[in-house]
């Protein structure tokens, strides 16, 4: 990160393995912001025009979404396999 972050979002350690995927996704959704993994969670850099509360929640949600997506992927695959039978 080129300068001090505008936002540090603490993320519970149980979710840390999903942070890289969430960051990849957030870089695509918010190309004007920079996201980086820290020991505590996610640091956000860039314009401060964003509502910090909403942005923090959005970061948390993206991490949650990656966790749910990865953990439930076998269920979804099972649905389509059933449909293809």
């Amino acid at each position: 990160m080129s300068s001090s972050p505008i936002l540090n979002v603490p993320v519970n350690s149980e979710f840390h393995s999903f942070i890289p995927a969430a960051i990849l996704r957030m870089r695509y959704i918010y190309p004007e912001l920079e996201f980086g993994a820290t020991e505590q969670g996610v640091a956000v850099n860039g314009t401060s025009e964003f509502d910090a509360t909403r942005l923090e929640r959005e970061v948390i949600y993206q991490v949650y979404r990656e966790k749910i997506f990865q953990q439930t992927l076998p269920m979804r695959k099972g649905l389509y396999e059933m449909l293809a039978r």
Partner: protein
Amino acid sequence: MQIWPLRFRDLDDRRTVLADDSGAYFLADLDFVDRYSGDRLTASDEKFLREQGHAFERDGDLAHTGFLTRWSQRQHVSLGSAYVILIPTLRCDLKCSYCQVSRAPTAAKGFDWDDETLQNVLGFLNGLPVEQIQIEFQGGEPFLRLDLLEAVAAFARRRFRKVRFVVCTNLQTLNEDIRAFIRSDDVLISTSLDGPHQVHTRNRTADPLLTENFLQNLGEVIDLVGPERVSALPTIDMEQPPDPEALISSYEAFGLSSLYLRPINYQGFARKSHPAARTSSAWNDYYRSFVDVLIARNARTGRVIEEFYLAHCLRRILAPGADSHTDLRNPNIPTGANAVINFDGQIYPSDEARMLARIRQVDLAIGNVKDGLDHDKLALLAPAHINTLDPDCIHCPYQPFCGTDPIDDLSRHGRIDVPRQESWFCQRHLAVFDLAIDLIYSTNPAVEFTLSRWLGLETLPEALRPAAP
């Protein structure tokens, strides 16, 4: 207990809307998402999810089978009937500022089907693997070639078990032959009414006398066939949007009980003179304020006017199978049974695709009536017409109710892989579905009055408003 994946989105600062892949939705407070994602659901959370069909114990148990049934109904669109748009002529006797396809002047040559094209169109229709069809005549002004409409209608009534025709007309001309054509029970009229006299004149006719003529003809057609066989829709110019009350009054004056608010289409030539068509926020704000006015008015007058698109979105939320509107369904894969045949015999997957070809942005023709469908092109277009596994949509609670519009994405961005949230289609539909969910959960008697009437219910059952404890 296993929980089917839940998608979530904050509806406001207090409430989150969640839905599973079958479209079963509920509201929860913001903490629910933290508990769900962190595997810390309470006993009452789990009880709620079990009771609402979001969870099951074992493969094949009743809850599992019930989910599969609901989910599978969201994975396909019934193909029992065809919906084909025919453009027998591109000529038109009006010159609306936002004409999508650059109509041709009435005296122009080469913008109508010739005899060979007509025969090929009939041959194409004959080959469709369906027994039911809706044929929509567009233009141009289709009544300029009533002979072609009559030829198609005569053929279709013989060929198909069930057939319905919709003539999209500006109703500037009405003569005995046209009256005879529209008297048939299987003919519906669709026209544009942009609002009060001066708004319609500004947007469409540019001449108060022509507007007067149109309004007179609209009244006569409604008297002739009844309001139930006539639909009208306003196209909204966001640079000068009509006052909602005045717009609704202009419809009610003709006994019309439904209107379908449409923004100026960005495809085609409209973009040149209406740059506001590019932004979604102004549209979403106007749309919401219009719905607020409509709901208050319905409650005040006791007469129920419907905004078609919101009512349609509500129906899509509440049950699978509301797939009659081709602009919003999933999957929406282009086929010959859901196509547009242009004045030159070219076949397009949608009217919007026809516009992109007309302005020479990209040729999305999927064949022509002489040589048939181009199956390679159909296969190329198919994946973009499914939202189910889209990397953005898969996280959205509204995906089971929503659709895609790659043609609009292509038109605005020159590509179809922009992040969904940046697309006009997504922004518009997030706003519509947010509004729909907000209304479903509203306890305002005026809202309940309108929604229950739109849905054909006496009252809105509490079962439509599941909320996590």
